[in-house]
């Protein structure tokens, strides 16, 4: 059964084909690059549907020998064998589908990227492989391996195709996430060294089955487990990001090209949530309990901090960036609640925020393209010129603030519900953030859509998009467009752009109206985890 | 006699004794130098069809050298202002001391000898090499262009010819199986090494002449080119010590050639009733004569010829000699 | 007694050499100091070979090899120094500073 490998590595086909396309043939590149994201989408949807019809996902597991670190006689046969292992459950499947969907949409939205398109799509596809792999891995080493693929791909995507301060953002991303990864690697190495395996299931067995504990290569003390979990949580907190570590996120959101941010905000941030649930709750349930309070506290801080700062921003990307911080706080809150509702809420929130931020940044991309700026001060009254766009933007804002019936609501509601059950006081404080969310999202969006343009002249004349000017150093300008008028003038969403936006809105509504869509595959997983937690 | 003393426990009386004997040898050597110089002048005079010294000390000028030495003793001692004073003063001593020290290991007869060390030959070579330092130091300390050039030339020459010298002596060591000079002489009881090692002997002799800075290899002191070489600035007794060192080396080298190749004190064939000391003296005188002869007959070589001869002819030849000797010894003995 | 005297001598020589090698500016002196250190090593080897707890001829052999290697190193060192002098007209170590950042 090669299904999962096929799923993860199918974009590779696109990469190979792209290599043979001439650099200048941008239409072909766009077409091929987008097409390459379709096979994983089909496969992911297929798996999703099948699992909804009762297909047992364990049957998709794959394993083959990869590295045999040692065959010293005093170790058991399976010790220190790192295998290539893929395997999914409901939790991963949700994220895989999210990834596949957003990847395709991002590829569609990438038509606005004009420079070095070939390289861009190569790395975009590599990023997709990495993300799919992260969620499909059933082995810690391979999880890490795919995680680092996304690191490199993101670095290049941000650093090369980003805005004016793109390299700074890329380095910022690299350093923070590198440190997180390094910490993660230490934890992985310790686990691998002490247990002799990196497979999730085996690890779980080793750590929890008293009988299997005898097979440990070296003992894992109680204290040691706390350190391991602490390391894990810290590593993922950097990648989430929790508040003291959030600066890289702001930079990346602001500087990265919008389609890449779709994937970044949509999927990459969620890897941290996934990791916390999968490894934190999954492997160290008992120890996790004592960290729950801290997590919840950080969650609340995130929510409030992000929301308050978002209030003060006058730049749409920055508003969205801080709102991401705020929303990832909700994920932490859900985890900190440490009950079924909380964890389910965390996952919901992850998916919902993935869809919403993807929509927002899709629109940001269009906005940048049309107006050359995302500065709220310079924009206003777009409803007249771009009614469709304004509608979508408003929908995104409403989803963002958690309007019932849209996806955001389900996640936030369940998460807070979970926390109210365990730590009502914290939850009450955190809920303030939801109110702020309403304020900042509406304020920003309404200013853009209905508000009076503050500096109309400049807005229309289009002040030069920094991205274009920065690129022009490397590439002789092919058209004079970016020097004068904003490209395309003030035109509403067009067919090709409206399709992804429409799909996203549809999904947001679908999840909001029919949460069972997500809850169904999750339930079993979450229940298993709750059993691990002992209730 | 010497053997008993050597085997007695070291003590102060031993030191005194050795001191006395050493002083005796010193006297002998000084006497040799005195009359060696005279002999050289006489022989060269003879070869050039003139008389040589014949005024001071009778018809043969027997006191000529003594007078020369006295003159040197009374000469004013000048040290150039530009010179490096301590080194300038030290240089002649550095040059002289090793020349005398090497005598300690040379066995003149089986009775008349001094130190008996296993690495005698190596000791000779090592200590004699130190003189180069004195020569270079003298040339450098004088701060004079001629002197420096002479000193450098001397150093280059001495180190270049030391290699073939050492390598040719290796043939002798191979045959004798020892570096102890007494053993080497003993090994020549039947066959002198000049016959067993003719090639080595030739190389050794040539290299020895060069080491002694004598014609035809006297470039460091070539009067016509360098005024007087490394000791231009020296006068009086300081200069005398450079000269003394040179002639003591003449003594030592002649003795070494005798020991290594001419069978030391061993007699010729049936003439065993003549004492070893006489034999040694005879061979020694013969070597000294040959060296004087060289001086009278050979023209001086050019600097480039000198150096290239050492490295391109003597060195390969001595390597060949070593291999040949070793192979022959492995095959036939 | 004898042994420790030799060892002390060697140690002192070694330290002098090390001090000189690390502090002197003139490369020739530095090279000589290195030779000094190597000679201290030879004293050690020969002393141990003669008076050590387990006397053995290996010490002499080692000393011989050390001498040879020291010679080779000195030869290469001088060659490097000459080449350096030709291009920079100095033999001071601290003037060998063109390779800094």
């Amino acid at each position, binding site marked *: 059964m090669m299904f999962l490998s096929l799923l993860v590595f199918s974009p590779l086909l696109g990469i190979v084909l792209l290599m043979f396309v001439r650099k200048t043939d941008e239409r072909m590149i766009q077409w091929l690059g987008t097409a390459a994201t379709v096979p994983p989408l089909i496969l992911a949807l297929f798996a999703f549907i099948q699992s909804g019809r009762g297909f047992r996902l364990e049957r998709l597991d794959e394993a083959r020998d990869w590295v045999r670190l040692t065959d010293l006689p005093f170790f058991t046969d399976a010790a220190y064998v790192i295998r290539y292992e893929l395997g999914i459950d409901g939790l991963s499947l949700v994220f895989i589908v999210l990834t596949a969907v957003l990847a395709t949409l991002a590829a569609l939205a990438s038509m606005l990227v004009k420079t070095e398109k070939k390289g861009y799509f190569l790395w975009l596809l590599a990023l997709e492989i990495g993300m799919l792999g992260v969620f499909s891995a059933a082995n810690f080493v391979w999880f890490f391996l795919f995680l680092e693929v996304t690191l490199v791909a993101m670095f290049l995507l941000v650093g090369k195709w980003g805005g004016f301060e793109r390299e700074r953002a890329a380095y910022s991303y690299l350093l923070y996430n590198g440190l997180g990864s390094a910490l993660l690697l230490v934890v992985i190495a310790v686990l691998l060294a002490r247990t002799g395996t990196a497979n999730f299931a085996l690890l779980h067995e080793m750590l929890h089955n008293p009988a299997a504990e005898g097979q440990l290569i070296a003992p894992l003390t109680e204290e040691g487990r706390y350190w391991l979990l602490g390391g894990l949580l810290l590593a993922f907190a950097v990648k989430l990001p929790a508040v003291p570590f959030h600066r890289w996120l702001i930079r990346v959101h602001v500087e990265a090209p919008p389609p890449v941010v779709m994937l970044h905000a949509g999927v990459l941030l969620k890897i941290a949530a996934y990791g916390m649930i999968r490894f934190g709750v999954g492997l160290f349930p008992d120890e996790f309990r004592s960290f729950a309070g801290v997590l919840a506290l950080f969650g609340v801080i995130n929510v409030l901090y992000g929301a308050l700062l978002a209030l003060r921003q006058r730049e749409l990307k920055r508003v969205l960036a801080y709102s991401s911080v705020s929303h990832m706080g909700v994920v932490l809150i859900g985890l900190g609640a440490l009950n079924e509702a909380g964890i389910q809420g965390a996952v919901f929130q992850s998916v919902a925020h993935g869809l919403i931020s993807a929509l927002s940044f899709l629109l940001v991309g269009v906005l940048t393209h049309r107006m050359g700026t995302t500065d709220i001060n310079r924009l206003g009254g777009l409803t007249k010129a771009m009614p469709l766009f304004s509608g979508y933007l408003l929908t995104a804002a409403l989803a963002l603030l958690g309007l019932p019936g849209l996806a955001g609501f389900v996640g936030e509601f369940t998460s807070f519900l979970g926390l109210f059950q365990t730590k009502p006081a914290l939850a009450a404080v955190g809920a303030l953030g939801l109110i702020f969310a309403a304020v900042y999202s509406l304020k920003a969006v309404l200013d853009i859509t209905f508000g009076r343009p503050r500096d109309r002249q400049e807005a229309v004349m289009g002040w030069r998009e920094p991205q274009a000017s920065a690129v022009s150093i490397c590439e002789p300008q092919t058209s004079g467009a970016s020097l004068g008028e904003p490209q395309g003038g003030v035109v509403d969403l067009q067919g090709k752009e409206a399709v992804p936006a429409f799909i996203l809105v549809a999904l947001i509504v679908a999840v909001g109206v029919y949460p069972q869509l997500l809850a169904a595959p999750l339930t079993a997983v979450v229940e298993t985890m709750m059993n691990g937690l002992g209730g | 006699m010497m053997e008993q003393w050597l*085997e*007695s426990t*070291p003590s102060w009386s*031993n030191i005194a004794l*050795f*001191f006395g004997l*050493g002083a005796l040898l010193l006297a002998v050597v000084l006497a040799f130098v005195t009359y060696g110089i005279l002999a050289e002048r006489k022989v060269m005079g003879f070869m050039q069809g003139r008389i040589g010294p014949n005024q001071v000390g009778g018809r043969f000028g027997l006191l000529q050298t003594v007078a020369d030495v006295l003159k040197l*003793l*009374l000469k*004013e*001692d000048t040290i*150039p*202002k*530009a010179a490096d004073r301590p080194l300038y003063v030290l240089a002649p*001593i550095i040059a*002289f*001391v090793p020349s*005398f020290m090497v005598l*300690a290991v040379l066995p003149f007869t089986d009775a008349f000898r*001094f*130190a008996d060390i296993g690495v005698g*030959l190596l*000791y000779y070579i090592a200590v004699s090499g130190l003189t180069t330092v004195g020569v270079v130091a003298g040339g450098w300390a004088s*701060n*004079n*262009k*001629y*002197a420096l050039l002479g000193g*450098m030339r001397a150093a280059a020459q001495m*180190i270049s010819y*030391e*290699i073939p010298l*050492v390598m040719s002596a*290796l043939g002798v*060591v*191979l045959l004798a*199986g020892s570096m102890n000079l007494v053993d080497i002489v003993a090994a020549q009881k039947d066959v002198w090494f000049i016959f067993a090692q003719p090639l080595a002997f030739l190389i050794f002799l040539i290299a020895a002449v060069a080491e002694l800075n004598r014609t035809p290899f006297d470039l460091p002191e070539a009067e016509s080119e360098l*005024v007087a070489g490394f000791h231009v600035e020296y006068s009086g*007794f*300081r200069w*005398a*010590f450079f000269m003394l060192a040179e002639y003591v080396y003449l003594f030592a080298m002649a003795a070494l050639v005798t020991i290594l190749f001419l069978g030391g004190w061993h007699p010729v064939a049936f003439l065993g009733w003549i004492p070893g000391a006489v034999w040694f003296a005879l061979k020694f005188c013969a070597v000294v004569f040959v060296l004087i002869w060289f001086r009278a007959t050979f023209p001086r070589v050019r*600097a*480039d010829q*000198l*150096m*290239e001869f050492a*490295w*391109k002819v003597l*060195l*390969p030849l001595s*390597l060949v000699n070593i*291999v040949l000797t*070793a192979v022959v*010894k*492995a095959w036939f003995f | 007694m004898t042994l420790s005297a030799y060892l002390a001598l060697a140690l002192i020589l070694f330290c002098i050499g090390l001090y000189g090698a690390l502090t002197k500016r003139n490369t020739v002196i530095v090279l000589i100091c290195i030779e000094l250190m190597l000679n201290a090593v030879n004293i050690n080897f020969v002393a141990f070979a003669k008076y050590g707890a387990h006397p053995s001829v290996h010490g002499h052999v080692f000393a*011989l090899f050390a*001498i040879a290697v020291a*010679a080779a190193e000195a030869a290469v060192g*001088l060659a490097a120094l000459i080449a350096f002098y030709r291009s920079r007209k100095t033999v001071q170590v601290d003037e060998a500073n063109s390779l800094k950042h």
Partner: protein
Amino acid sequence: MSNVYANSYLIIFVFLCLGVLLPIGALTAGRWLRPHVPDEMKATTYESGNNPFHDSRVQFQVRYYLFALLFVIFDIETMFLYPWAVVYDQLGLFALVEMIIFIVLLAIGLIYAWKKKVLRWM
């Protein structure tokens, strides 16, 4: 036997002392006997009657150093040959082969220097 050893080196030491004493004695004696009339001109460096110019410690031709290097190398090589020669009788054929290899390597070194024109004096 060890007495012979010690006495031999004692003798060498004595010779060293004698060798040092003689020049010191002779030079001291000379100091009493010889005249001492210092003069500015006497203390100048001799340059065949010309006034000395420049410092004489000039940079030397590199070939001097090259020969010095060659000397160091070959002199050390002989150091290996001597012990070998002394015990050659006891070692037999193997030592011969080994030493021939050694000498051939040495010869290659010499040929190398020759070919690279190191041995050219002028």
